């Protein structure tokens, strides 16, 4: 339990500050628009709040997962990410909008593989650089 609570306090502080600024900006910029359109000034703010809550749950879940898990899956994740990026380029599989083919249509939602690629690249770089530390 002590290990779970041993978080980087400065990182957490930076995260909290970014979230607070982001939420303030969302409320400030969307209040009048959502009041006119939906009759509720906090419509977008509440949506953002729900997304933030989901993000926080994901953050806690990811911090509980042991680092060996990320180490083990860094390369497979990179391979999967590359394959999915290639799938996007195939006509009929990748969804084209506004002249760009960036999305995959999955049941219930649209998936953008480039977001997944960012995560995969970070895992790969961390894993690979830790392995090549002395070269």
């Amino acid at each position, binding site marked *: 339990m002590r290990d779970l609570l041993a978080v980087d306090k400065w990182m957490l502080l930076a995260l909290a500050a970014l979230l607070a600024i982001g939420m303030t900006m969302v409320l400030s910029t969307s209040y009048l628009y959502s009041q006119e359109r939906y009759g509720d000034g906090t419509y977008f703010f509440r949506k953002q709040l729900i997304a933030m809550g989901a993000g926080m749950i994901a953050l806690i879940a990811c911090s509980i997962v042991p680092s060996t898990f990320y180490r083990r899956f860094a390369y497979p994740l990179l391979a999967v990410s*590359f394959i999915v990026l290639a799938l996007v380029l195939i006509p009929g599989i990748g969804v084209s909008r506004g002249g760009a083919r960036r999305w995959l249509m999955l049941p219930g939602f649209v998936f953008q593989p480039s977001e997944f690629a960012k995560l995969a690249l970070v895992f790969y770089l961390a894993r690979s650089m830790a392995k090549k530390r002395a070269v």
Partner: protein
Amino acid sequence: MIRTFSIGVLPHLIVGGAFALMLLLEPDFGTVLILTMLLYFMLFIGGARVHHLLATRANGFAPADLRDDESGVPVAPLDEFFGSVERRLGQRFSCHPIFDRLRLGADVGDADWGRAARSFFICPKRTRISSIQ
């Protein structure tokens, strides 16, 4: 600390470059920029030598510079940022002059591509700014 170019830096650049290529085909230039910055910052934090990174960015931005006009994405400010670092250090870093000529849009018809390719894997050379101006 990453010390060597061929083992410590180049494999990561190749993987990052492959991803960037796939994203350019979509095209998603914004994500390419984010991935590039991510790659360079992580290499820097990982201890890669600054002159290795500066040399490879000169080559990496060559295709991006060529795309600049048609895509309307401002690559020039990023290039200018790295250029200002080089000017402050008083040195310019490059794997081979051919990559610089490519970046500047100069004629490369007479270039020795084989030697340029080999030098890319050995990388990089330093040139004093004063000697190239």
